[in-house]
């Protein structure tokens, strides 16, 4: 993975309106490096709907189609069908949605598109809440987090939904997690997804949000790295819903990741123990899935 060639060309320009340290912005920059100019980006309501720029400006050098919050999967399906009818197989359609647009309001359209095995890449940049509307909880918000709809003692007591597993259950050709702290791994995955034409590819990108997570903007990448190093957000790939490959193995305690974020500052050592336990069990499950496939082949 190290030394993977990162293309020089950028398709994101300066002057976008992302917050300082915005992980979603870093994610787009890396993604488009791998995708190149023959890409059309479909964006439902989310922070990126704003970051992309107000009419008549655009922060991307590729076409953008903005669409309703729940519709990334469906709009991308229609766009793909039109390009196919025009005989344009070269252009890749890339849906680019937040966690709310993917885990919650858009899950129906996404599931429909994946079941039809539509030929596009669906990216969820996951900042673990509805950031555009002011940090409300989503089903991607992790256990323990405060948001504006899980405030004070009402901090979130439910687990984060496991989206990659939901997609694996669709037997999607390719599903992967990626992190803005691992650009080479991320660009490799986008490049791989781009080349795998003919079916749906899903990339779940961990994208820190300094504003919503109450972390200093300069800690954005470091905290994303800690999420991987503590196995809170493992980097792995799933092919055809069954072939699992783990890319990075973490070993740090979860507290290293949690303790430096404002959104978790109310948590106690007891809570960290509980979270450590959940993360360990999830990791164990992931290892088992990986070895299960190894036994199958």
């Amino acid at each position, binding site marked *: 993975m190290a030394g993977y060639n990162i293309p020089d060309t950028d398709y994101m320009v300066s002057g976008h309106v992302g917050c300082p340290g915005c992980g979603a912005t870093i994610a787009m920059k890396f993604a488009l490096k791998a995708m190149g100019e023959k890409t059309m980006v479909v964006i439902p309501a989310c922070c990126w709907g704003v970051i992309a720029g107000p009419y008549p400006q655009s922060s991307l050098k590729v076409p953008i189609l903005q669409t309703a919050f729940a519709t990334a999967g469906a709009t991308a399906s*229609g*766009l793909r069908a039109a390009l196919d009818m025009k005989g344009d197989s070269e252009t890749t359609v890339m849906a680019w949605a937040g966690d709310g647009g993917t885990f919650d309001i858009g899950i129906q359209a996404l599931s429909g598109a994946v079941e039809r095995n539509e030929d596009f890449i669906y990216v969820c940049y996951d900042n673990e809440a509805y950031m555009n509307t002011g940090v409300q909880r989503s089903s991607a918000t992790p256990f323990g987090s405060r948001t504006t709809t899980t405030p004070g003692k009402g901090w979130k007591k439910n687990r984060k939904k496991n989206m990659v597993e939901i997609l694996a259950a669709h037997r999607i050709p390719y599903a992967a997690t990626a992190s803005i702290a691992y650009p080479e791994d991320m660009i490799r995955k986008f490049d791989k997804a781009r080349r795998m034409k003919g079916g749906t590819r899903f990339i779940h990108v961990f994208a820190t949000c300094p504003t919503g997570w109450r972390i200093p903007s300069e800690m954005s990448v470091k905290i994303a790295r800690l999420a991987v190093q503590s196995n809170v957000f493992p980097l792995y790939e799933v092919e055809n819903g069954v072939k699992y490959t783990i890319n990075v193995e973490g070993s740090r305690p979860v507290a290293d990741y949690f303790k430096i974020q404002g959104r978790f500052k109310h948590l106690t050592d007891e809570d960290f123990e509980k979270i450590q336990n959940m993360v360990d069990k999830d990791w164990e499950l992931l290892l088992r899935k990986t070895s299960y496939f190894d036994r199958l082949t």
Partner: protein
Amino acid sequence: MKEVLEGSHAVSQAVRLAKVQVMSAYPITPQTHIVEALSEYCADGTMDARFICVESEHSAMAAVIGASSAGIRTFTATSSQGLALMHELLHWASAGRLPIVMAEVNRALAPGWNIWMDQTDSLAQRDTGWIQLYCEDGQEVLDTVLQAYRLAETVNLPVMVVLDAFFLSHTFEPVDIPGQDLVDRFLPPFSPKIALDTSDPFAIGQMAPPNVYMEMRRDVQKAMEQVLDIFSGVEQEFLNIFGRTYGPVERFYCDDARIIMVVTGTAAGTCRQVISDLRSKGEKVGMLKLKMFRPFPVNLIREDLGRVQKIAVVDRNFSFGASGIFAQEIRAALCNHPGHPPVFGYIAGLGGRDVTVDTLSEIYWKTKESDAPEDESVWVGLVNC
């Protein structure tokens, strides 16, 4: 060539002849026959098109919006609950200036579940920026779908072609299916004014702050204001090639009429009979069939209705807390027209109840015998009330 066809299949045949390339729809009675036939055309190669079997109407409209944004001719069809579910996307289509054509089968909204004729579903979407055209029979349905593409692609606005549940969607009638060569002459391949293109990247549907939003909405209205003229040009060409024409409104015995009954959809067929019967008894009555509801043909309404003694509007729909929707719009069109006649509003035939010759005769006599409307809306044919 004439064939005996269901109203639904008149739609499907027109979509085939229009050489639509991307379709997406979700099944709902009574729209199903339209999309089943189209699926068959795709499966057996009759059409060179993609039919995207989405998981909801919300997604169906989103999918055709995606396809239309790339400059492809698109189609969808729905009814009732499905149209209600699409509501959010209807605005995306019109403000996105996408020439999408949709067949909408008028059906009642739940609760209670009711699959039968009622216009409240389409009329509740009157503020979404879609052109709305209401049809009376199978031939008009086929012709209107073809005209809708010409119209939509000229003004860059989406068009809803509306037909009555069952009374039209499931009724078999002889329909002249034109040859492909003639249709090609009338409807050339779509050449989009806007289409996403990687060699000329731009953004569609992006953020529109207060400094630009109002002008964008004004542009939609400006396009709407051109529709009537463009439609008459489209109709003229249609007439030249196919020998048929309908008009945004149709006048039946209106010239010397003292009372004009305003009707839409299949009720117009019944009303023709009623008018003929009444005329044979010496009654000075006429009918105005309203085909175009959006844009509302205000000037035509003033011209045709402004000078009669009384107007009787038959609404198979209702706006709660107000009145029948066609009556409401006609009142609004006439209110600045000096000396306009009283508008009698009648609610009839909701949720699939028949609007019979007797219903319409009752409406006529009530109107004739009253000096002024007894109420904003008079509900006709209620049981146990």
